[in-house]
């Protein structure tokens, strides 16, 4: 049931958000698009802090001293090259007094992702003129471009919108263009999109939706899908992957690339439906990875279908199993990340599962249930994790452990009818999760957070509910989820306290 008050006549529902800044990738993309600068200067910026599970959260994007130090360096390097190019090539043979101001307007339009207003045009022009009195035109232009590259209108995604009451603003067409492009393509808007904003085509929900749909047909949008699902499945933990003894270290990279390939293939050439994240047997395996999977090793990395009686979607891959190498870690991931279930607080780290000679992993972890200290937190985690007992700590399939047959049957009891009940093995739980509304709702919530650069707040409940409905009613179509996220209040509106 929708929340009772999700009625548009009651106004727009959106929680407050603090402005984002461009990520290093987006910065690199901007100077590439605008100046053709391929030096990726932002790779020298501090790594993005991870907050609430994702590395793009605006709460973690304050301007710190080290950012400012490096913004200066990057701005100078980019401006210096660009100014040289404009003077010696772009404006060659032309009257600089006319050409440079014209260039400044064009560059400012792209960097600020909107036209410069009159006051800004005058200020930047005056700054160029002032610097020209003490230096060459090239030096003056370099200083002016440096100022643009250090401007908050370039570095931050400033949204002022138009007030519609109750502290809520409706974003301008240009602001919507930035959101669309940054959210769906991971890059600042191009000329064509800015032109659509100028023409008023992004002023209505219908216009924005049509544009989003068109953009998602573009090939490069897979970057965002791969980034989001990659962080969701925990690719940032890839370094924890421990390979079986004797496996070449390159296999770790292959395991990570397999998941990236999987997501891209699933979205681009597969169904792009949630269920197949858990069910698709398609894989991209290197020779070493094939050995771990126990399939015939190809000479060159190749696409194969993994054995259907042993493997299904992402949860049965080396990457997930090898970075979550025991029942507690595997169970915790399913509860936290796939089901959005509350995780029991861990007061004191329990002792490790005891070493019992000849016991199976499950038998060792079952000791947690009898130890009151350990069962406090392991009591919920381990049983879910036991379904993965057919894989060892590296993700290698096993039918027995220490001569005993594997028992991968368990019962889930978390008060959710669509997941509760007996389940046997990783294939069993994958099938259950693939059709679960709880899982679908959880993924929609995660996407809301990723797309809005902040976790959902109570004021976002209508937006979140609409996304959950869309994902469920389209049979788990993630492309439709992405498009729907441009249609809810949180996308075209913003709450700005004290404005």
């Amino acid at each position: 049931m929708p929340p009772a008050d999700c009625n548009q006549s009651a106004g727009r529902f959106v929680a407050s958000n603090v402005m984002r800044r461009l990520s290093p990738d987006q910065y690199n993309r901007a100077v590439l698009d605008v100046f053709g600068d391929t030096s990726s200067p932002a790779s020298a910026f501090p790594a993005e802090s991870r907050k609430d599970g994702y590395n793009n959260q605006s709460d973690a994007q304050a301007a710190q001293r080290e950012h400012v130090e490096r913004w200066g360096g990057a701005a100078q390097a980019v401006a210096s090259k660009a100014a040289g190019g404009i003077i010696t090539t772009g404006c060659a043979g032309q009257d600089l007094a006319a050409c440079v101001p014209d260039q400044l307007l064009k560059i400012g339009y792209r960097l600020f992702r909107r036209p410069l207003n009159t006051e800004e045009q005058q200020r930047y022009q005056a700054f160029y003129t002032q610097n020209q009195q003490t230096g060459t035109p090239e030096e003056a232009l370099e200083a002016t471009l440096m100022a643009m590259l250090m401007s908050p209108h370039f570095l931050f995604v400033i949204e002022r919108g138009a007030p519609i009451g109750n502290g809520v603003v409706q974003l301008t067409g240009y602001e919507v263009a930035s959101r669309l492009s940054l959210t769906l393509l991971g890059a600042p808007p191009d000329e064509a999109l800015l032109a659509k904003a100028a023409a008023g085509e992004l002023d209505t929900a219908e216009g924005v939706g049509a544009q989003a749909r068109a953009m998602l047909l573009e090939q490069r949008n897979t970057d965002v899908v791969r980034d989001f699902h990659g962080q969701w499945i925990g690719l940032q933990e890839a370094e924890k992957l421990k390979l079986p003894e004797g496996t070449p270290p390159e296999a770790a990279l292959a395991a990570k690339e397999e998941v990236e390939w999987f997501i891209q293939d699933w979205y681009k050439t597969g169904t792009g439906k949630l269920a197949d994240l858990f069910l698709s047997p398609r894989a991209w395996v290197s020779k070493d990875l094939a050995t771990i999977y126990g399939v015939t090793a190809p000479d060159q990395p190749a696409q194969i279908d993994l054995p259907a009686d042993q493997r299904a979607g992402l949860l049965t891959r080396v990457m997930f199993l090898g970075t979550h190498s025991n029942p507690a870690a595997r169970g915790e991931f399913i509860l936290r990340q796939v089901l959005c279930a509350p995780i029991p607080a861990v007061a004191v780290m329990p002792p490790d599962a005891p070493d019992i000679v000849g016991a199976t992993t499950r038998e060792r972890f079952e000791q947690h249930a009898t130890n009151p200290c350990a069962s406090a937190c392991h009591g919920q985690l381990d049983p879910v994790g036991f379904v993965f007992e057919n894989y060892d700590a590296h993700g290698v399939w096993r039918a027995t452990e220490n001569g005993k047959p594997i028992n991968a049957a368990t019962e889930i009891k978390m008060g959710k009818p669509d997941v509760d009940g007996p389940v046997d093995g990783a294939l069993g739980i994958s099938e259950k999760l693939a059709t679960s509304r709880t899982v679908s709702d959880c993924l929609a919530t995660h996407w809301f957070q990723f797309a809005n650069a902040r976790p959902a707040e109570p004021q976002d409940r209508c937006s979140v509910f609409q996304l959950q409905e869309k994902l469920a009613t389209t049979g788990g179509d993630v492309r439709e989820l992405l498009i729907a996220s441009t249609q809810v209040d949180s996308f075209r509106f913003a709450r700005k306290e004290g404005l």
Partner: protein
Amino acid sequence: MTMNRLATRRHHQLERRTLLKGAFGVAIALPWLEVFQRSAVAQQTDPLRLQIFIHGNGVHPPEWFPDTVGPDYEIKNSLLPLAPFKSRMLVLGDIGSKSAREDQKNGRSGHTIAGAHLLTCSNTVGGKNGQFDGVGYADSISFDQDLANLIGKDLPIKSINTGYHCAEAASGQMPRSRFSYTGPDQPVTPEHRPQQVFDQLVGFAKPAANDPAAQANAERIRARRKSVFDFVDAELKGTSATLGLEDRARLEEYATHLREVETGVANQVVASCEDLTPPGMVNVIDDSNMPLVAEQMFKMTQYAMQCDLTRVGVFQVRGEQSYADYGKIKDPITAGAGGNHHGISHHPNEQIGAICKMHSKFLADHAARLDAVKEGSGTMLDNTIILYTGAIENGGQHNFNNLPHVLIGGTKVLKGGQSLKFGEGVQSNNDLFITLFQAFGVDKQTFGRPDFVTGVLPGVLA
């Protein structure tokens, strides 16, 4: 992704590395912050510096803490590499993190909160939606940043925060790998790539004194740069006024740092610094390179301090819950300590003792290099307070009662050459930091959560 696509990507990665290597010339040719005049703050000779070294997953207490107190104590195995500095070293016992202990009572996991508590002595911010472990970063400024605001704000680099394998992706999410904070919920991201530190420092190269044309050119660049800063500063002010409260605060933060950087540029110092050696290409997440990365980071930090570009340095080995494999380091010390560091730490034993001994060796090498630099009547080590510390006591229990704090150097202000114990549960990290503030001549009566402050540690200050 086709096969080709994968192959191209690998090729591209290689190519970028090669390019970076070849970029030294560019980095040197385009310094964006040149060295000019000596400022009042920088004219102080032989300034006192702070270097913090943090290692995670706790220690093996019997191999760390001396059995006795006073000057005639026996150095235990994990600290043996530091023996040459015994007369200038303080091994502290019984100092706990009271704030972490309190936070743990809220049912939070030891590793996750430990990092945020070590240098802040405060609280952790709740994770926003409770989905991710319910733990956020620290809610207040850390000691190193608080001190840097007092002694380093007007230097070109406020503090130099580096580490081995400590990037976000490397050590996972959450506060377990973030120790330094500029303010509530604002972790400092330590730099784990030696090349990036080098590029930053090399930007401070100054034009040769015997080249007046280069000097004049540099002066023009400086003037132009100042005009850019002033322009951006004005734009920040103008823009802030049109924004909502949260957005305004964000731009005001930018403006504050912009003015600091501008002052730092003006205050750059002509000092006699040794040439900086480019670190070269290193796989910075391969544990066999840990000693090399530590050495490079320490050498560059030393350079920055010798040139008075900064006075505060923090170096961390990964973070809490580090998964490093010390078996990959070809050194007899850790020959028997292979495997997952975090896994081993749950049952602290001789392997943990050996891992800590390895860390002590990294630090001893650094201390020896500092001690080789004469400064005034002593050496650079005498003018540097090194705090060697970790966020938890013992990886088996994830406890915070007796944290492994060691002080080295700072001989003019610290009473080195002793083992001290302060009595169980009496003193806290808060007290350690107000003591260190005093050592830096800053009379601060409180730090972190005021209810956990007892007072200056007795017997530590000279």
